[in-house]
């Protein structure tokens, strides 16, 4: 297991015990590692590399929604690589690309490189516009304005529980929307 994988594994364990900062850090690290891989995977399936950031986001949502499927006794790298590969093939299929993707290079060196989000300010298509108003407000405050659950609840005059549910459903709807069209 590489150092980077060992670090993800530690962060994810901490996240499972309720450490939100560790979780955020883990997702950021994973996003950086995914980018070059996703770009390469997409170009191999004949999809424009412009879609990279979009697919990275799809993978991150999947990692989040399926986080219970990581068994702590197994290495985390192949788990993430498995999700990423599935989502890249899925994205390629929906965009009319080829759907074969060799696994080897993907699984092995996922952890070897990193790339920050490109400076291009092109807003990825995963917009919040399609969400129902309540969920959209909550997701926007938390994601873009960086508000906490408590502040969001105060701002929108909701209970914290309702904010949590709206956030959870909003993220679920974002993932679902992407599965259905794109």
């Amino acid at each position, binding site marked *: 297991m590489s150092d980077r994988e060992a670090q993800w594994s530690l962060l994810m364990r901490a996240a499972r015990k309720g450490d*939100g900062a560790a979780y*955020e850090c883990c997702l950021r690290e994973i996003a950086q590692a995914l980018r070059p891989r996703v770009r390469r995977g997409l170009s191999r399936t004949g999809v424009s590399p412009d879609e990279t950031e979009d697919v990275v986001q799809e993978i991150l949502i999947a990692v*989040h929604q399926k986080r219970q*499927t990581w068994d702590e006794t197994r290495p985390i790298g192949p788990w993430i690589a498995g999700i990423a590969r599935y989502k890249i093939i899925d994205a390629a299929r929906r965009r009319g690309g080829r759907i074969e993707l060799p696994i080897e290079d993907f699984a092995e060196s996922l952890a070897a490189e990193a790339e920050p989000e490109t400076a291009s300010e092109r*807003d990825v298509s995963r917009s919040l516009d399609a969400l129902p108003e309540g969920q959209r407000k909550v997701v926007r405050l938390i994601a873009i304005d960086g508000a906490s659950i408590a502040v969001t609840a105060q701002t929108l005059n909701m209970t914290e529980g309702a904010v*949590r549910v709206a956030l959870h459903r909003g993220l679920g709807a974002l993932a679902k929307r992407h599965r259905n069209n794109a």
Partner: protein
Amino acid sequence: MKTDDLIRALAADREPSGPKPGVALTLAGAAGLILSALLFMWLVPLRPHLGEVMRTFPFMLKPIEMGLLVIVSAVAVLRLAQPGAPYARTLSMLAAVPAIMIAAVAVELMQVPRAEWMVRLAGVHWYLCVLNMVLLSLPILGALLIGLRFGAPTQPALAGAGAGLLAGALAASLYIAHCPDDSQLFVAAWFTLAIAISTGIGAMAGPRLLRW
């Protein structure tokens, strides 16, 4: 939305993420098995003198074969529900079951006169046996597919096939309590056919129902 923003939102989402695949699949499998057991009791009677027959060797081979198939396919399904979990070796272990069957059939062919082979193969009612086993596998298969949706199967067709295999093996295990035929010729032909059908149904259902 920028990726950094998305990550912030994901990290803020602390709602529980659902049961682990092992828990979901165990509960689903148990629920499906209960449904199938009820269907079994409604569909066919228990085999007469089951208690005595159970201790004879030709009978005992059936639960041994099906039990092995259940265990190995259950491990395979669990692995197929988790991205990155290796499953190739588990799948290769499935070969143990046909190997036992082939050996048992060979022994039977040597012991039984040629004239009786077809009688043994056809059994009391082979078509009912196949039909009933496929029917009994369906509630279990449906439940396992629901269970798999709590996992993250990256190979939906294979995961569906695994669920079909496990459902077929569990259904066959139930059916043993009714099936009056102990010939390995019968088992190797019709149990195999029924389990192959439920595996095929699972393989076809997987890509349709297991996307995430």
